[in-house]
């Protein structure tokens, strides 16, 4: 964000506690000090209100980054995201673009219970006119936020609170100020031959863990990091499935009408279907509001053991 704020003076950040508090999760630390009140704006606790203001600013030619302290609060403002931002370019037949980024932590955290743990990938991924990205590691976060800010369309960036504190080695090219990750392109994090495992956000890490465990048993998983929910890089998934003949999807959100459900449907519609040796399997969050007690919460999110189980079941092992 710092680099994009520096590069283009039309870019600005607004949201709760983003300025003087340095960010509820410290994501915007130092930015207010550097850029001041005009570029980093603390808002009252009024999501519908400030999301609307942000959309208006985008329509008028600025490039706002609208932070939701978590995407759970975006439900208060979802009309602005969908009806005011996502649909407008279409409704105006190309007259009015809305170059806005909505970002913030999405999905389960640790012990924050039902109203603070929902994953919105499926809800936002459902809407034409929106782009939706979901970074896993530091490289993803950097490349995707820069692409999102430079994109002239409304982009929803679903970050993850538990990943904020995880460090990754940043490869040399990712350290450049112009490092961008194209929206709509997945990345193969690990090559494999026996099964395709597709995930987005934090579960990508769990898939890699599962792959490491299974490798010792001679099972080589190809792990795909979706990076973008919409537009989905179905080509990458299809190419992989045509190679491995097996598919498992992994997500933190609820199973019904979820990201995995969409992947499975699309696979059936395309060339990869004929290459499947077994039905595709989805690993998801449990179909309940997030419970608080640790034992219940642990079983309401996909764990490495659930992924391993699903992979073996698919491979009939």
């Amino acid at each position, binding site marked *: 964000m710092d680099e994009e704020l520096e590069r283009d003076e039309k870019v600005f950040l607004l949201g709760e506690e983003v300025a*003087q508090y340095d960010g509820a999760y410290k994501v915007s630390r130092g930015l207010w000090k550097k850029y001041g009140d005009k570029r980093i704006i*603390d808002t009252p606790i009024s999501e519908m*209100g400030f999301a609307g203001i942000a959309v208006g600013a985008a329509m008028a030619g600025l490039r706002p980054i609208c932070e939701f302290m978590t995407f759970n609060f975006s439900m208060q403002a979802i009309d602005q995201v969908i009806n005011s931002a996502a649909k407008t370019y279409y409704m105006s037949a190309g007259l009015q673009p809305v170059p806005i980024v909505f970002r913030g932590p999405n999905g389960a955290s640790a012990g924050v*219970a039902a109203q603070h743990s929902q994953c919105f990938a499926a809800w936002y991924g459902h809407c034409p006119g929106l782009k939706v990205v979901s970074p896993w590691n530091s490289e993803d976060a950097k490349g995707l936020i820069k692409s999102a800010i430079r994109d002239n369309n409304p982009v929803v960036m679903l970050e993850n609170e538990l990943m904020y504190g995880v460090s990754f080695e940043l490869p040399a090219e990712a350290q450049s100020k112009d490092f961008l990750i194209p929206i709509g392109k997945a990345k193969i994090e690990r090559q494999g031959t026996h099964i395709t495992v597709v995930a987005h956000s934090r579960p990508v890490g769990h898939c890699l863990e599962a792959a490491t465990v299974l490798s010792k048993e001679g099972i080589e998983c190809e792990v795909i990091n979706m990076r973008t929910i919409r537009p989905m890089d179905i080509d990458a998934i299809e190419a992989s499935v045509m190679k491995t003949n097996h598919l498992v999807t992994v997500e933190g959100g609820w199973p019904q009408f979820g990201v995995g459900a969409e992947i499975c449907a699309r696979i059936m519609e395309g060339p990869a279907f004929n290459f499947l040796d077994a039905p595709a399997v989805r690993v998801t969050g*449990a179909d*309940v509001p997030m419970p*608080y007690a640790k034992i219940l919460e642990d079983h309401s999110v996909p764990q490495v053991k659930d992924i391993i189980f699903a992979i073996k079941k698919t491979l009939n092992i």
Partner: protein
Amino acid sequence: MKKMLASVVSRVLGATQKPPLRVLLTSCNYSKDATIDIKSCDLYRLEGGPASSTLLTRDDGLKYYRAMQIVRRMELKADQLYKQKFIRGFCHLCDGQEACCVGIEAAIKPTDNVITSYRAHGICYTRGLSVKSILAELTGRRGGCAKGKGGSMHMYAKHFFGGNGIVGAQGQIAEAYNMAALWKLPCVFICENNRYAMGTAVERAAASTDYYKRGNFIPGLKVNGMDVLCVREATRFAADHCRAGKGPIVMELQTYRYHGHSMSDPGVSYRTREEIQTMRSKSDPIMLLQEKMISHKLSSVEELKEIDVEVRKEIEEAAQFATTDPEPSLDELGHHLYHSNPPFDVRGANQWIKYKSIS
């Protein structure tokens, strides 16, 4: 003189002699009740306001003191349990704001319905949940008031609709004000103004910080929220207003929280330690009540100290329970999705994991 005699006698005769002596002192030394002057409220669109003096009975005084002390100790215990990682996620404490929940409850009926935001542990207690069930909910055990499934922000009781995690919506309040006034709903809108919206001072978050006037066409009261008697009288007035069919009313309680917004917020980056210290030493609600009770001879330092000891014991026992009660069983994961529903299966992390869902 009598006090000196009593302490001499008790020292000489030993601890076992205390009870009979105290009974004697009680009937001699304490008043049954006292009329106490309280700060008057600022009024908005109101001809008259709450009474400027109130009758406090000794019994009520002791009840309020005890309740506030319980809330205080319970919140401090929650702080401790959070730091020891028995409590996870978010934890928003209300120590400093005890006069609000205790004062409100003193003036409403148990059958009135109450709803609030996440800073709710105090109101949970005054609405009838036991300290045990509150602490056990915070630690996520089966003995919790929501069986461990809700956590800090999702506690409910009869005539208490929670405990809610999603707040703020000024637009929604405006809508609620409009409809309540339009349809003359018997609704008391209470703002516990503790001066900060998370980490942002109200002056930076509100175009007008006269929250009691923000109901626009709805009358309002600005109340000293650190004085439990002020809160009680104001709430009485507000409740009467509604019950008389006059429509909604707004009450702003000027109060203060000692802790930060939540346990993840140290609470000192946006306010000074001096400010917090000043509130503690000049406006602490428990101290204010104690002073009133002693100066009006409704109680004594010793008696109140004894209540403190009992309260501490109760909190310790509740914390003991909260840290030793087992977690809910995994079978519970799917329960309580729907009311009056026949049992069905809930999907887990993959299609082979199923949990039974019972209403």
